[in-house]
């Protein structure tokens, strides 16, 4: 494979007991590009995500992350919070996982935990209220404010996250992931439950994140209008294996993909084909 790849998944295996959820899957995500991972329900997409973001430990294979500065990190060796802290991979969840009892602003402040912990001298300097800590906190609030502005939630900054409408919660979760200043942003069905206007706004947001922040994006999506419009590269999975890969155009016309969707779910197949016309 050619090109500048930020993420290389190499023969990834994931078994749960006797069930093989992901079988020797290999694909790569290009730097500063949007890569979409699609497939019928139960194809193993979220399992791949959980392996990449450290929630599962893969049964086999390798996941390599190449940073801008040339560092290469073996993600399958890191686990848990270190994926986000050291490898700079951020994720969102299929069913939104915000901190509902905290305000939108607080949600974004929690996302900057590691940077703020350093600035507060592991709490000691912060407890004393030193100016360096206050300065760091002000910068963190400014970053959070900037992201709230980007996702159009500045006027709701002081509202509890749990009180926001569904579409706003989706955008806030993306903003929260971006506040960790990730190199790779993994989005698990970001357009699920959004109406046409909201998913249009989501497209713009994701494109602007790619173009302005230069963050690489890997996304799982069922909404083909989102996938076809913004992805640079599409990987199609079915039953834990890759069945096709290429540009959105090429994937849409691939008979194997159409068959997979037809076989799995009629509605999705129709959605795939209709979004092309």
């Amino acid at each position, binding site marked *: 494979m050619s090109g500048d790849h930020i993420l290389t998944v190499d023969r990834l295996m994931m078994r749960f007991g006797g069930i093989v959820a992901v079988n020797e899957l290999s694909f790569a995500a290009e730097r500063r590009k949007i890569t979409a991972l699609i497939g019928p329900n139960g194809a193993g997409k979220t399992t791949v995500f959980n392996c990449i*973001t450290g*929630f599962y430990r893969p049964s086999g294979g390798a996941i390599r992350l190449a940073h801008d500065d040339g560092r290469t990190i073996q993600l399958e060796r890191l686990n848990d*919070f270190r994926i*986000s802290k050291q490898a700079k991979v951020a994720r969102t969840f299929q069913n939104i996982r915000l901190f509902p*009892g905290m305000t939108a602003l607080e949600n974004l402040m929690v996302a900057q935990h590691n940077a703020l912990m350093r600035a507060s001298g592991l*709490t000691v300097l*912060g407890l004393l209220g030193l100016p360096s800590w206050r300065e760091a906190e002000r910068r963190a609030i400014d970053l959070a404010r900037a992201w709230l502005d980007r996702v159009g939630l500045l006027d709701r*900054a002081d*509202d509890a996250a749990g009180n926001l409408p569904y579409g706003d919660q989706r955008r806030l979760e993306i903003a929260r992931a971006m506040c960790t200043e990730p190199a790779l942003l993994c989005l698990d069905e970001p357009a699920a439950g959004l109406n046409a206007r909201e998913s249009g706004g989501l497209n713009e947001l994701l494109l602007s994140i790619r173009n302005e922040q230069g963050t690489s994006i890997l996304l799982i999506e069922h909404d083909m209008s989102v996938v076809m419009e913004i992805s640079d590269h599409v990987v199609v999975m079915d039953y834990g294996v890759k069945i096709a890969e290429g540009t959105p155009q090429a994937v849409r016309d691939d008979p194997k993909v159409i068959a997979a969707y037809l076989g799995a779910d009629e509605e999705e197949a129709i959605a795939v084909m209709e979004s092309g016309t």
Partner: protein
Amino acid sequence: MSATSARPSHAAQPSGGAFILKKALISALVALVLFSLMIGVRTEAGPQGGLIYWTRFGDLAALVATVFGGSIIVELLRQWWGPIDKDSLVPKPVQSAMSFAGRWLAPALLVFAFLVPVIFYDQRYILDLSILVLTYVMLGWGLNVVVGLAGLLDLGYVAFYAVGAYSYALLATNFGLSFWVCLPLAGILAAFWGVLLGFPVLRLRGDYLAIVTLAFGEIIRLVIINWQSLTGGPNGVSGIPRPTMFGIPLDNSDSGLAARLGIEFSPTHRLVFLFYLILAMALLTNWVTIRLRRLPIGRAWEALREDEVACRALGINTTTTKLTAFATGAMFGGFAGAFFATRQGFISPESFTFQESALVLAIVVLGGMGSQLGVALSALTMIGGFELFRGFDQYRMLVFGIAMVLLMIWRPRGLIGHRAPTVFLERNQAISSDLVKEGHG
């Protein structure tokens, strides 16, 4: 539009006469089954030692009828009132008055606390009681870090109280260290035990965490009872030195404070000193907790309570975050324990039973988890109120229990259920308790 959508729950409930009748019949049936043996038949030992019995079906019928009628009345009242929510229960002017009171309550309480020894100088009983209340306020604030902020249910908090108390008692009696040296040591030792407890329970959640912490509390107590050579076992430790005012003893001797100031000695001096000491310690706990909430570690605690999986996805080390919560809470418990030891002059394992853990936890839960003011108010109610009920004699526990049940019905999330945000851009508005999670342990 708004009128129809405002009360969907009300419309969904069946409200016909048949429903009321059915409910009343069920209640009456339950009453019949319950009371048929308890009331309907009375047995007694006869003159020859045999068992004689007679029936009281009239009483039984009257009771069942009362339950039947009462059930109908209650159901009618409930429909007349409509669904219970805060807006309909409390009229608007009262609400605004309450929010005004809420804003001034904390400063007013603080000023009052400072004036207590002045106002009640001659009433030893009240001074003693307020010292006790403040001890529980401090314990409540300490446990609030673990339970209220981090959402980890800790049923063995008294263990750290015991560690603090025994640390001071043993260090002071064996090595002659002063209170002011022992106080930080007691805190450090308690924090150390907090971390030690934290490690094995990190993977546990909810009920399982509660059980292990409960066991930990018991283990500490049993170790204290059985390690006779160190702790004196059930006999406890006596002759614990009283605190000195930075080296000046508060006693009747020539070098005592009273003699140095040239005033007449009174035992109240020491009480007043102890009062201000525990007040200062409690306020320090409060200040540190408020500060910590606004620091990344405090926000991480609350985020952990809200959603642990999301925390991990954001790169927060949940292990150290939980351990710091345990350690911080334990440290405050240790401070309070050292104070307890110096106040009593004698400690024994009997002071550190599960009863104490339950009481402190009840203070935190009744006060509203995470709310500093709520915890202070509920410590005042629980400890002070309990003394107020002394007039009820044997019904004291009953009245107290009913009061607690009523409070929990009226305010299911504690006295102060809402959460104040730690940072805001424009408006500092409280977050409704419906949204704030309780944590899963």
